[in-house]
Each structure stands twice: as structure tokens, then as C-alpha cells.
């Protein structure tokens, strides 16, 4: 177990290296530069800026310099936030996305697992069709529709939640994280419900469940003690990356509710050709993915002895 954890964490190094290398050369190959604007600065100024940020050097040189920096955990300066380093951008935006993402994760799990289990128990009955149609609708309604709908209802009609922003909103009854978290949570709940239903149906049709039933185990115990343990396995492998995705923020939800999270930095950094920020956020996301995949694997191992090594 400890060996597994250590070896997986060591794998992080080559993974990050490959991710950064590919992203580095890809991002530099997009046309357009970080300092172009509708009102062009003079060529001399652009040249000075390129010199200042080392962008005048050959690509290999820039690559080596950047990698040396990363090895010292310094992700470099951001061009967009002229007074911040990429480390600072991540340090202030990630906690916000983390809060929203964790709450969204809880909401998604509660709704998704409940709906999925119920649907599996009442297969092909109204309690299957109803939650599953809702889940289908949840997958089909994108967050940029769900977000504004929630904002208008809770923010403008009920007036209990702020519709925009993060700081200085103490007067509103609902914390500004709630609506973004619900928007994201509902979206993920739909996926989780479908995965749960599939997993549960698989298990419920197996012989050991039939045996348990024959032996007179109560329906409740069959579901919660026997079926869920195996039925949720397919879900677990989805939850690792899903959790990493949730806590690293969503561009759409952050724009709809104007919360200053990390999700928008991924997208904006590309639009702005803010190379260090592109690389920094991608590397950070890669670390999250690897770590939570590992956690998902460990959890899966705990639930399913067959996958233990």
C-alpha cells in the first residue's frame, strides 16, 4: 500500500514534465503574443517587454529556464496580473474554487447516489423513469443555463442570494458559494445518478444477491450492505477526476456568478497568451488529477478486495 502510494507519487514527476513540455511548445505555437492589443504599443516597447520576460531568447533557452524555475516551485510571473506571480494567482483563486467544488461534490453525491440507487431498485418503474429523466435533463441543461436560472430565482425573486461576486456580500442570507455549488452539483449529480444506476443494476442481477434474498436478508440490508459496496465501484473511478475537476473551478459557473476562482484562469490565460499562467494552471490541474486518481484507486481498493495488489 505504502509502496503503491510512493510509486504513484513518484510518477507525478514524469507526468508533470511531459504535461509541461507539451503545453509549453503548444502554447508558444499559437499565433498572437501576450503584448498585442487593439492599440498597438510601439515595436520598441514590445521588444523591451519581450526582453523583460525573456521571450526574445530562443525557444529551447526559454524552455530550460522555465523548467529550472518550476524545479524550484516557482511558476514565474503572470503577464495578465502584472503585479502577481503565477504562484500568487493560484494561491488566491484556488481556495475559492476548492470551497465551491467541495460543496458541489457533496450535493452531487447526495442527489446522484440517492437517485441512482432508487432508480436501480425500481427498475423500469415510475421511480426509475422519473429520476433518470431528470438526470438526463440535468446532463442536457448546461451550466450556463442552469446558473442564470438559479441566479434569477434565488437572487432576484427570493432575494436570498447574491447574483455576483464573492467578497463583501455578508448582508445576503446565502453565502455566495451556494448558487455556484448547486449549479455545478446538479450537473455532476446527473452523471453520478446514471453511473450509480448502472453499477447497482449490474450487482443486483448477480447470484450472491439472489442467494442473500433467498436466505431472507431484508431488502434494506441487501441494498446497503451487499449491493452498494460493489455497485458504487464504477462510480469511484469517475469520482477521482470529477473531484479534481470540481475543485479546480469551472469557467462558465465562475463567469455566470462572477466568482474569482481558478477555473477562469485556465481559459483567460490562453486568450491572453499568458504563457506562465497557462503552464502553471495546467501543471496544477495535472497534480490534482494524479492525486485524486490515486485516492480513488485507494478507495476502490478498500471497497473491492479484488483490485488490491
Amino acid at each position: 500500500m505504502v509502496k503503491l502510494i510512493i510509486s504513484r507519487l513518484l510518477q507525478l514527476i514524469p507526468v508533470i514534465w511531459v504535461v509541461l513540455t507539451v503545453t509549453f511548445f503548444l502554447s508558444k505555437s499559437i499565433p498572437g503574443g501576450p503584448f498585442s492589443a487593439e492599440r498597438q504599443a510601439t515595436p520598441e516597447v514590445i521588444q523591451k517587454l519581450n526582453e523583460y520576460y525573456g521571450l526574445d531568447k530562443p525557444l529551447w533557452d526559454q524552455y530550460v529556464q522555465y523548467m529550472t524555475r518550476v524545479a524550484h516551485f516557482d511558476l514565474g510571473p503572470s503577464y495578465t496580473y502584472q503585479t502577481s506571480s503565477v504562484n500568487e494567482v493560484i494561491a488566491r483563486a484556488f481556495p475559492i474554487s476548492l470551497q465551491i467544488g467541495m460543496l458541489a461534490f457533496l450535493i452531487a453525491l447526495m442527489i446522484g447516489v440517492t437517485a441512482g440507487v432508487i432508480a436501480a431498485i425500481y427498475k423500469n418503474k415510475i421511480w426509475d423513469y422519473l429520476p433518470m429523466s431528470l438526470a438526463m435533463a440535468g446532463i442536457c441543461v448546461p451550466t450556463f443555463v442552469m446558473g442564470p436560472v438559479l441566479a434569477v430565482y434565488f437572487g432576484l425573486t427570493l432575494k436570498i442570494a447574491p447574483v455576483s461576486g464573492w467578497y463583501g456580500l455578508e448582508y445576503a442570507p446565502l453565502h455566495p458559494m451556494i448558487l455556484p455549488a448547486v449549479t455545478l452539483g446538479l450537473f455532476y449529480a446527473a452523471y453520478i445518478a446514471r453511473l450509480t444506476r448502472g453499477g447497482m443494476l449490474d450487482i443486483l442481477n448477480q447470484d450472491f444477491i439472489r442467494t442473500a434474498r433467498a436466505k431472507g436478508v431484508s431488502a434494506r440490508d441487501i441494498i446497503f450492505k451487499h449491493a452498494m459496496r460493489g455497485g458504487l465501484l464504477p462510480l469511484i473511478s469517475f469520482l477521482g477526476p470529477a473531484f479534481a475537476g470540481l475543485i479546480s473551478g469551472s469557467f462558465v459557473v465562475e463567469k455566470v456568478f462572477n466568482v474569482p476562482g481558478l477555473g477562469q484562469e485556465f481559459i483567460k490565460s490562453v486568450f491572453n497568451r499568458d504563457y506562465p499562467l497557462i503552464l502553471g494552471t495546467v501543471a496544477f490541474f495535472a497534480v490534482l488529477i494524479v492525486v485524486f486518481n490515486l485516492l480513488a484507486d485507494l478507495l476502490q481498493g478498500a471497497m473491492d478486495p479484488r483490485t488490491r495488489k
Partner: protein
Amino acid sequence: MNLRRIFDLALFAVSLFFSLVKLDAGTPPALEEANRRKILLICEGTEPRTLDPQTSQGVPEHHVIMALTEGLLENDPNDQSKQLPGLADRWEHNEDYSIWQFHLRDNAKWSNGDPVTAQDFVFSYKRILTATLGAPYIDALFVLKGARDYAEGKITDFNQVGVKALDDRNLQFELIGPTPYFLSALLHTSWYPVHPSTILKFGRIDERDTKWTRPGNYVGTGPFILKSWKENDVIEVVRNPLYWDATNVKLNGINFYSIENYDTQERAFQAGQLHKTLEVPLDRIPYYRREHPDLIRIEPYEGAYLYRINVKRKPLDNPKVRLALNLAVDRESIVKNITRAKQRPSTGYTPPGMGDYQSLDVIHYDPERARQLLAEAGYPNGKGFPRFNILTNTSQAHTTIAEAIQQMWKQELNIDVGIENQEWKVYLDSQHNLNYDISRGGWIADYMDPNTFLSIWRTGDGNNDTGWSNPEYDRLLDQAAQTANPQKRLATLRQAEELWLSEPSAVLIYWYTRFYLMDPSVKNWNPLALDDHNYKFIDLEENETPKLSLTH
């Protein structure tokens, strides 16, 4: 996992939810509270990249910096072509407007209590002209004698640059030529002073992006000081008690919100989180004009929406073709049916409202003449006219206008045009490298003088981006730059614009307006051509009973 654990988990989640919900829903909405405390809540769109007046570039940056720092002059609250005394209480110039002397008022102070001196200004201009700082507006100061040479390293002694501190209070500028619009230029943030010892405390004179612009470090000369800066959310500024005119400042503070999404801005306004939005979503303009004319403001803005023409490409190198393309556009229809916010159809290039400069009235919708010109150019009824593309940056609004123009050209001139979208930075690259046929663009005034528009068509100007060049045009601009008499100077500029309009390197479409939502509790927010508001005149009135019946 058993039922018990799931139940516990659910209980935990529910209690977590309620711990986040405060049940005192009776608290007043943000706007009323803000009115009571006299805090203005406005939206500036994108997040400012920096608050350094010398390395900043965009409009949101400009607007926040104007609250924090003041220059020699300040904006007139009613008329953008006028100026009020700022840190300077009086000034004089020689007969041909080439030497200016400003006297700093005795009570002009930095927000840390230091007196503002003429030497501070000299330091500031040395800083912005130091090329390694990479100031985007460095060229704004090239009207100073020797400034360009210093920036380009041809001279290294800053004493040779035309700015001198005669003593602590008197500052003298020596300009490269007569500059009657100098006062207007001085309003731009690039001419604002920075506090020398603060700059040097956090870095070298030419070091970009040091921590001096952070809350707690920022030292400015404006009516407000920087209280907090929460990136991508809000910048809070509060009253500066040491400001020379502090008694006349009416607001206690301003919150500048960065909300990019126009729909979110609108919702924040409806929820009472904003006094003013940056813009109204295009499709909502008719609704507000119909239902809430008291909340929507539509004002002229000194900007021109146009399509650059690459004159290096055939057959667009033919002035007759370019004129024909202009005359075949029904601008009236575009502003009435597509943009719908009282934009004014362009009849010339420089928009109306530039002080004494009369904008020109020569470009009209005239399909008959357009066809005739096209025939003269060798393409009767569009026959043999090669297919070309309109390049736009990706945006629904731009595409819709491009489609309308595509239709008009097809209908009136029988020529086929394609539309090509590019992502913003790619589009900028294509445009700058003349890698296009026709490219959507716009130009917004930096200061209140036609020169801010006309100078971009100079040969080789960094913003020309059309390949257009006419020695006579350059000569007229040079001549205007040497003319001291303001009337004669404007007449020369007008001649230059007429020349350009006779062989335009752009299809002129409309002159901009700004459209935004504003709560009636905001007072003295007047329509201004450059949208540069002098915050110290703005006031908030309590007990204004709004307003909004929400219909979506």
C-alpha cells in the same frame, strides 16, 4: 457503507448547508446601504492588470487610476473638451503653444503627506520614458522635446529632455512644436505623476510590476486611496483626507467591480449590487428603452467602428473600389436594425463632438454612385471582381454586422464576400501583419483632438494596419503640428481628413455610443465624450425610491 453512515453524511451536509445560511434576511440590500454610506458601486468590466499609471493601458485601469491619482489638470464634469486645474492651479504658455509652465498648488500632497513637487513630475517622466520600463503609452510623451531620442537611447542625459523643475513648485515643458491641445493630452494617465521614493522603495526606476501598486503601498495624489484589491471581484477605494480638495469630495468611497459577463452585470444591477453597469446586453436594449428609460443611459462616445481595408491587395488598392464599398453600405439600416443603441451612422471618420472640429459629412449610402465607381474601376455590375473575406474577431455582434454588409455588397454591387472569424489575439496578429482583405476594427479617442484619430493613417504608424500611405496626408499632419493658430490647425487637419476620405483605407460604419444601466440615486454623472468622470463631483442621494419590476 451502511445506512447509518449515509444518514450521518446527509445530516452533516444539511447542517453544513444551514451553517452557511444566515437567517436574518431582513438586512438592507447593498444599494441602500451604499447610498447611506456614500459608496459608489460601479462595474468596469475586465479586471485591471495593474494600477501603475505608467505601465497600464486599458480603460478599466484608466478609470480606477483616475480615482487614485491626479495629474496637473483634472476632468471637467460637464465637458470633456475642457479641463479644470488639478495639482497645478495655474499655467501659461508662449505664443505658439510650444513652451508651457505649470505652477503646482501649495497644498498639493501625496497620500502619505509628502508635498507634490515639480521634481516628482520630472522623475515620473524620466521613468515612463525609460524604454526598459516598457510603458505602452510611452509615445504619448513624444511631444516633449528630446523624449523620443531619450526613449530610443540616442541621448542618455535626461536633462536634455524638454521637462524641467524650475523650482519645487514650477514645472516647465518644452515641446517639439506648437501643441494647442496639450492641456487635453495632460488628462491622460500617462502624464500622471508617480511617487519617486515609493517607486524606488519597491524596485528600480525601470522595474515593472513591483508591489508598489498593492493596497497599503500605493501612494497617489487623487481624491481616493486604495483600500483593497480583490482580483477578479472588486477594488475598493476610500476618501483621501490629504487630497488638496478633500472638502469637495462627496463620496466616501468607490467599489470598482470587475464583472465581464454583461448578463451578470445586469443581474447584479437588478439585485441592487451595482449603481452602474458597464454595458447592457444588446438584446436587452429595446426592453430597457421601452420599459425603463429612466434606468438606461445611451450617450455618444468618441469612437469609430470601421472595417480596415488592406490596400496592398488587388483590387482593394484601387481607391474607386474602396469608395464604392463605402457608398454601398446602408448605415442607417445597421444602426436601426442591428446595433439599436442610437449609434450615429458615420458620414466621416472623426466623430462629432471633438471641440471646435467639425466632423465631415461626405460618406453616404449611394448605391447608384457605388455601382458607377465599381464600373469605372473595371468591374461593371461586379463582373470579374475577385472574392474576398471580411475578417472579424469572434463575437456574435460583429458577425451579425458583417453578414448585413455582406448582403448589402452582394445586393448593390453584386460582389461575393466571405466572413472569417478569428480568436482575438490571432485576429490582432493577422490585422497587424496585413494578413487580411478587410478587417473589422475600431478606434477610440485617447484625448479630445482629431489628431488622436487622424494620426493612425500616417505612413507606417503602428496602428495604421492597412498599408495605406499618402505623402500629402503626412505633410498635412506635419503642417498642422507646426501650426500654432488653433483654427488654422483644425482646418489643416480637416483637409487631411478630406484627403483620406477621398481614398479611404477603411469602410466607415458608425460612431459609437455607450449604453449602460444606472440607478437614479447617482447624481452628477453627466454624459462625457471620453467617459472619463471626475469622481469628486459624483454624489449619491438617499431615499430615492426605485424602480424595477423584474420581467425576464
